[in-house]
């Protein structure tokens, strides 16, 4: 079993944090994981991409052009990943979740964690790991931050909703 996840957003939206948590969870679950980031030249404001692969076998090559799951968190990211859309399995487009995010009062800095919830649901359904595995990784990274309550809420909401 093998899944290719491409995460895309603006620098500062927490794409690399998000991919870090997913990778940590997969690693803790004994799976093979591969991650490679991709940035523009700018230190801020450019597009931030993370190519993540989780597998039961060693991963040969870090990049791919046919993600099973494509997360788009911004307009800029949408432009940048235009060519991936046609070849993608599921596309998680932030514009489709604006309403849910505001209805559930998920604050801006927890949006990536909301999407973590969504992605986790997919990983659980497809048998890659249990929900707790991701939650543990999330806790390890963010439990000490001030935003923790909001992050738990964002994660749970995302998981509930699924894709």
């Amino acid at each position, binding site marked *: 079993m093998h899944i290719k996840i491409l995460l895309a957003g603006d620098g500062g939206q927490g794409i690399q944090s998000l991919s870090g948590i997913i990778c940590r969870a997969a690693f803790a679950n004994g799976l093979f994981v591969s991650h490679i980031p991709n940035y523009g*030249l*700018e*230190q*801020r404001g450019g597009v931030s991409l993370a190519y993540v692969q989780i597998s039961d076998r060693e991963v040969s090559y870090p990049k791919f052009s046919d993600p099973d799951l494509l997360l788009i968190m911004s307009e800029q990211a949408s432009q940048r990943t235009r060519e991936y859309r046609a070849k993608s399995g599921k596309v998680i487009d932030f514009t489709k979740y604006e309403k849910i995010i505001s209805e559930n009062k998920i604050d801006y800095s927890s949006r990536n964690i909301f999407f973590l919830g969504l992605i986790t649901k997919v990983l659980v359904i497809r048998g890659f790991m249990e929900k707790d595995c991701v939650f543990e990784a999330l806790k390890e990274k963010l439990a000490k931050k001030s935003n923790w309550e909001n992050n738990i809420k964002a994660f749970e909401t995302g998981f509930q909703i699924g894709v």
Partner: protein
Amino acid sequence: MPKNKKTKSIAFCPGCGHIIILQTLNRVLQKLQKADRAAIGLDIGCSLLAWDMLPISTFQTHHGRAVPTMVGFEKAREKSIAVAYTGDGGAYSIGLQSLLWAARRNNPILVIVVNNTIYGMTGGQTAPTSLRGQVTDTAPAGHDELPMLGPELVRELNGQAYIARTAANEPVILAEYLERAIKATEAGNFALVEVLSYCPTNWRMKGVESNNHLNKLKDTFKTGEIL
């Protein structure tokens, strides 16, 4: 060289000093009605992001090589206003040799050094102007050398050059110094204007804190014309 028609508005980080400095340079050149005679050679660092920003001929060069490029450009086109726009790394580290020689020879080019005491584009490594004790990506325990005072050093080599230092939070003075510097190059002299600048991203500061830090830098890097 391919011309890119689709240009982004501003590629610099929010709060970056480059934006103010470049806009001021543009205003001065426009005011003097000399923008069409000017050419700006950029270092490879954050300055490279200015390649498509201004309505002035601008081209990227290589890291540390904006100065020698503009020496050649000016010699090929003597009525031009040749500007080498570089960061502290390009000017005082890898490009120091070329900078000192251009000054020594009194090449009539204007060198603008944007000094934010850090290597921005590569992610915050030590710069020749980093302060003693400053924590950077390559000095995690704090830098152990004193910062380089470029304009003062260049003054040792050239008594007739126009040399000044100011800051990104003094745009009126900056405009004045740039105007004088341009006039100096037109009179056949080397000109160097160092501009203390913000790097909120790598300083890990925002707004007021970043401006306070910039003002604090003036204790180490004296502003004014260097006579």
